[in-house]
């Protein structure tokens, strides 16, 4: 006797939400760059019965970027979703999952992200800074200046750049470059680095200490640089904050 047809699941049914949250946790814990994403909407769900208590689920979800970098130990539920006027970034994901005896497993994910259109942001907020390319020279200049300024004042470990996460430029009323970048502590103090910075390497995996910096650099009418760096402290890799080995020898 063919398996009884599965009643179609609604996108807001508890079972759909459970699958979506499992998918979002999987995506965040396997993402190696940028920021954590939060669930915004379940676009569609399809269930293919495979047998008793065994379903394959195809899910389409809309995500929104949060302010938490992927390396941050902050739980996703405490990560603020970037607002529309911060120039939001949306993620579209197709996910294949299996629900077997009540346990949900992610089998495959395919995602792509895109920033909201600048026109939309300007329409709502004419003076809001807009996202710009990460290899824009003003951006790399601001990151280099900010990291150098932090290291020159630091009393603890000398920090090295891991990746630039986000950059925005505001043109009016003053010209401001806003940057966010991931950093890691090295085996040097800031003092030692002044002697021989080449000797400063990222800490080994069992002592890794990642962090995050935000900075703003005003170039006109006068120079002004603000930088704030926070280190997370050593984190034991967990399913939510896996350690990414490629960072251990990554120096941008």
């Amino acid at each position, binding site marked *: 006797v063919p398996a009884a047809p599965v009643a*179609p*699941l*609604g*996108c*807001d049914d508890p079972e*759909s939400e459970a699958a979506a949250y499992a998918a979002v946790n999987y995506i965040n814990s396997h993402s190696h760059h940028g920021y954590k994403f*939060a*669930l*915004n*909407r*379940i*676009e*569609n*769900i399809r269930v293919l019965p495979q047998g008793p208590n065994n379903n394959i689920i195809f899910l389409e979800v809309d995500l*929104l970027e949060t302010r938490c970098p992927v390396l941050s130990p902050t739980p996703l539920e405490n990560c603020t*979703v970037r607002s*529309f006027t911060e120039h*939001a970034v*949306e993620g579209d994901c197709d996910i294949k999952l299996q629900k077997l005896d009540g346990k949900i497993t992610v089998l495959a994910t395919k995602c792509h992200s895109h920033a*909201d259109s600048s026109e*939309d942001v300007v329409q709502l907020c004419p003076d809001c800074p807009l996202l710009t390319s990460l290899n824009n020279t003003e951006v790399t200049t601001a990151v280099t200046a900010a990291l150098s300024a932090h290291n020159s004042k630091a009393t603890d470990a000398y920090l090295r750049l891991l990746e630039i996460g986000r950059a925005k430029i505001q043109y009016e009323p003053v010209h401001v470059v806003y940057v966010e970048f991931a950093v890691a502590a090295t085996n040097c103090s800031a003092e030692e680095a002044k002697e021989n910075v080449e000797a400063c390497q990222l800490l080994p995996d069992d002592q890794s200490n990642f962090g995050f910096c935000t900075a703003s650099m005003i170039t006109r009418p006068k120079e002004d640089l603000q930088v704030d760096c926070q280190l997370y402290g050593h984190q034991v890799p967990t399913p939510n904050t896996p350690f990414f080995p490629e960072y251990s020898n990554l120096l941008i």
Partner: protein
Amino acid sequence: PVVKRAVAQHDKVPHPVGFVSPPLLCPGRIRHFKI
């Protein structure tokens, strides 16, 4: 002789009282805002 009969226009079967067509199941609710 085989004669093709015009099929009488079937009248819509009225839904039994109390039947609610399934609400739009997807897409689901928006939790933050729509880009």
